[in-house]
């Protein structure tokens, strides 16, 4: 079922459930736990030194190892960090303990916590959250809760919030090939907040609305970073009887509906697979005895398989045939657009066993026409039965045992339905396995940092100056009669405070001001490259300049392009570029009669609109800034040739 066809009743039927984790970088000068500059980025090849680390799982406070931790340890990755002195000190690479937390960041986070109606904690405890993928050189992220149990008001429902934390941003991945994963450390340590919602969303569009709301709320403070990667969402999705799956790092909110839709139906498909398997293995003991059989294969014996050719050339590569009992028809079972259950296996081979794709072939491959002999051989060698499916996998010799374990583990999970995992998102709306979903077991206190008390007076200070709630702003925009298609643009760019100022100070028509941003500026931004010197406040100053010089505001729509393109130019010059010249209104109106006559001479059309258009075209450059164009048109339409054009408007 595609998202276009799906209705609320479809989502209710599969039991759509989703929650959000919204990450937002804070606009601070420095990083969260050291004095490196925040927000300075480098290209992949720009680095001064490399450091190599490995991550080992450790016990959590509650005395247990975390599942993800163990998996990551299995993969035995060499983690390489590329560091640049400008943005990285000994803290980021874990050779110096943390400095005291960045107060600027803490205050911004506190303000956003209050805006999100969280219960603010009495004491902030820095906690270590384990990440063994290497994205943080310490092996953990320093993070702390500022508030629990808040809420946001969407158009039709309230969404409950679980918590808001302040944390250090992670490294950016450069590459991940085989056993080597490379990161750069420029982003590492930038202050970040994470707002976590309860799983209260009941359809894909609602999730999008929630993500937008939280993003706008964060931006309404004017103290967060914007731009690519500054705000990122993790979406937790499940269907009824499914499991929580976290779709990580969604950088475009517009992708959320497609991703959540596909995920909930992927889970639905996995439940169908489970039911099929339960039918085949109806007795409990059959299921618990279930296991795969495998046989190592010498790639040299199968030179006709192009996939194995490389294996033959490279002596270190070896292959294995695997028989999966009862999985006939399962490997080719649809999971998400263009993918089947076999992809679930191949994805895990890449991540857990570190075998690059292509890493396997299977007996239900749609595009496998080259030679089916291989699976007949595997079937024979492994005494396969009719209901079984077969795999051929290949990779480095030392990775094969993990690979076989991985296949068996994933197939076993198929009997239970949907594995808890985190998945990476793609632009086409599909996802790929990233890692086993970590639990609360990976949290432990940061022994390097004392707790930080939050006094009532600290909170009060912010409470008095909080920006307006986003849902109140929606209402305000409506009241101003500003067209709805501009609302998201205005909120996304936190333009409400500026609009309010323009409307109040300059007595500008709200609808005009709203569309000046939401239509004109948005259009310009869509057409041109970003203009570094341009700031929206400039528009306020321009409008105020027009007011002061008693110019008609309409000219601002034409001027916007110039202001955006040449933010350094003064307003006089901008008007000059627009060829503006001050002319008395009456002089303009007086020209109408002559033009009407002229029109009659050159055109034979009797159409009044054509005539008016033609005249407006002639007069527009003169009128722009000098008189309201609507009023001019009215004058054009009203002017009779007999009257001598002394109409006042």
């Amino acid at each position, binding site marked *: 079922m595609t998202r276009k066809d799906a209705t609320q009743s479809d989502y209710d039927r599969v039991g759509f459930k989703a929650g959000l984790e919204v990450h937002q970088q804070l606009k601070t000068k420095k990083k969260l736990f050291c004095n490196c500059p925040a927000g300075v980025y480098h290209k992949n090849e720009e680095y001064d*030194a490399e450091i190599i680390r490995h991550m080992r799982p450790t016990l959590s406070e509650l005395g247990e190892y975390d599942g993800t931790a163990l998996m990551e340890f299995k993969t035995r990755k060499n983690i390489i960090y590329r560091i640049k002195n400008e943005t990285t000190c000994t803290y980021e690479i874990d050779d110096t303990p943390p400095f005291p937390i960045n107060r600027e960041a803490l205050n911004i986070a506190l303000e956003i916590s209050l805006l999100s109606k969280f219960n603010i904690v009495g004491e902030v405890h820095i*906690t270590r959250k384990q990440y063994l993928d290497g994205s943080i050189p310490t092996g953990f992220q320093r993070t702390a809760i500022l508030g629990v149990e808040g809420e946001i008001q969407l158009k039709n429902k309230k969404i409950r919030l679980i918590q808001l934390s302040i944390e250090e941003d992670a490294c950016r991945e450069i590459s991940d090939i085989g056993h080597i994963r490379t990161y750069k450390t420029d982003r590492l340590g930038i202050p970040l907040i994470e707002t976590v919602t309860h799983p209260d969303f009941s359809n894909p569009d609602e999730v999008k609305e929630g993500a937008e709301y939280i993003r706008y709320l964060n931006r309404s403070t004017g103290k967060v970073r914007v731009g690519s990667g500054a705000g990122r969402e993790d979406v937790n999705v499940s269907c009824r009887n499914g499991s929580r799956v976290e779709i990580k790092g969604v950088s475009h909110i517009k992708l959320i509906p497609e991703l959540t839709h596909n995920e909930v139906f992927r889970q639905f498909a996995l439940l169908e697979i489970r039911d099929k398997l339960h039918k085949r293995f109806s007795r409990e003991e059959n299921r618990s005895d279930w296991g795969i059989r495998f046989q190592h294969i010498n790639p040299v014996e199968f030179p006709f398989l192009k996939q194995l050719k490389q294996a033959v050339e490279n002596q270190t590569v070896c292959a294995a045939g695997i028989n999966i009992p009862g999985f006939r028809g399962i490997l080719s079972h649809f999971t998400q657009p263009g993918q089947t259950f076999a992809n679930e296996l191949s994805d895990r081979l890449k991540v857990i066993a570190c075998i690059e794709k292509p890493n396997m072939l299977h007996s239900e491959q749609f595009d496998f026409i080259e030679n089916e002999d291989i699976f007949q051989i595997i079937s024979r060698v492994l005494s396969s039965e009719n209901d079984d499916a077969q795999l051929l996998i290949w990779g480095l010799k030392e990775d094969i045992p993990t690979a076989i374990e991985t296949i068996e583990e994933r197939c076993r999970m198929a009997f239970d339905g949907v594995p808890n995992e985190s998945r990476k998102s793609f632009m086409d709306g599909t996802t790929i396995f990233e890692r086993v979903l970590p639990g609360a077991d990976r949290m432990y206190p940061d022994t390097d940092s004392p707790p930080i008390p939050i006094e009532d007076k600290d909170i009060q200070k912010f409470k008095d100056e909080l920006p307006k709630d986003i849902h109140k702003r929606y209402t305000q925009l409506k009241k101003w009669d500003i067209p709805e298609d501009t609302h998201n643009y205005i909120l996304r760019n936190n333009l409400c405070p500026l609009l309010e100022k323009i409307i109040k100070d300059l007595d500008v028509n709200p609808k005009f001001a709203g569309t000046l941003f939401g239509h004109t500026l948005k259009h310009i931004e869509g057409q041109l490259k970003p203009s570094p010197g341009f700031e929206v406040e400039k528009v306020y100053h321009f409008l105020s300049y027009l007011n002061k010089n008693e110019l008609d505001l309409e000219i601002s729509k034409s001027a916007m392009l110039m202001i955006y393109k040449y933010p350094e130019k003064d307003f006089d010059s901008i008007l000059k570029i627009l060829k503006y010249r001050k002319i008395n209104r009456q002089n303009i109106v007086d020209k109408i009669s002559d033009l009407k006559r002229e029109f009659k001479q050159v055109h034979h059309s009797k159409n009044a609109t054509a005539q008016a258009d033609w005249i407006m075209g002639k007069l527009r450059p003169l009128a722009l800034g000098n008189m309201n164009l609507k009023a001019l048109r009215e004058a054009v339409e009203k002017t009779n040739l007999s009257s001598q054009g002394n109409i006042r408007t």
Partner: protein
Amino acid sequence: MNTGNFQGYKGHALSLLQKFNARVWGQVKIESTRGVFSGTILPRSENDDDLHIVLKISTGYNIGINVLTITQIEELGYKKAHYQIPEKEFPYSDSKPNVKLFGTGGTIASRLDYRTGAVIPAFSPGELYGAVPELADICNITTEKLFAVFSENMGPEEYKKLAIAIGKEIENGIDGIIIGHGTDTLHHTAAALTYMIQNPPIPIVLVGSQRSSDRPSSDAALNLMHASYTAGHSDIAEVSVCMFGPTSDEYGFLHRGTRVRKMHSSYRSTFRTIGDIPIAKVTRNSVELLQPHYKHRRQDKKADILPYFDERISLVYYYPNMKPDIIESLVDNGYKGIVIAGTGLGHVNKPLYPAIDKAAKQGVSIFMTVQTLWGYVHMNVYETGRDLQAKGVVPTQNMLPEVAYIKLGWALGQTSDMEEVRNIMLTPINDDITEREPYNGYLIYQGGVPEVEEFIKKFHK
């Protein structure tokens, strides 16, 4: 200190918990003027204030609730956490060397202590195997915890006990010794053991970690593997320190116990050989010699154990305008030996002369080292140096100040005869004094220089 139901809580917080009958590890709902909070009450670190209760919430995070805002606590359940390193039986093998690991209190593998937020070491072979299973591929390990003290609390009594215990293991025919140790004074202990255990037939390797093993990026496991390989397999029968070479997880260095020093407060690659090069580069399955000369492993079970130490010694770090009363107070308090870390080639200011003169005359042995760490004491270049020598200050060549301090205590532990002490001090033991300083014994590259930057970029730091 509060144990039992209220671990770590005191004052206001304690009375509030008692009032509402809420215990540590209790699963509670707390109502406060800031809203409702649910979670498990955790023990509080004893050094923190008495105004907050620590709660672990369901997402795994900890938060603190101000007791003055709390109106109600309701205990809904109770679940005590217990820490355990997954203990597995250490797989012994006849084909692998037997290595003894002595614990002194440093953490090799560990778990967390809630009360203090500190780290509890895992130590039994089973615990070690659970935490670092790779060890079983290297050697058979047995363990013995001699004491549990922080590195900074290691002292003469511990040195002596350690030397005697190691002597016994040598007699019993062990193949190698590892000593787990905090890093702050690792080099003091290394020097002490070098003097107290002479001519050992096997490697004696001190090891620690700069990042505690409760964190995934810890250097502990790799250091332990390096030390185990060295102790079990290497030919180097000396007291050495085995710690990270670069800050990267790549290889370790084996530093001679008398030439090593901790040089950075927090870096992993903090230990450096001063005025010479390390004995070897070590990985988990190799020892690559860097020094051609070292003492070789022997098959006998003999070593000279010399567990002597006189504590009445001091190390004085000279600074401009030091007043003579610093020296005088040492003499007045019965100190028998002083090591001075002098400026430059080994100098102190003139006002100290009378005090030094007096001290020497009262039988206090005084030795000069350099606070530059690299280079030799040279007290003949300037008049001041010659004056000091005349007053009885003995230059100790290129012996490191901390090493000279330990050696002096060891020497005075054996004799109070100043001449004999002088002889012991100046007789080189395991390169505590070297005849020559190789050109590459002093390498502190200066960052920013293009060719240095090029080098750094090329190799893992």
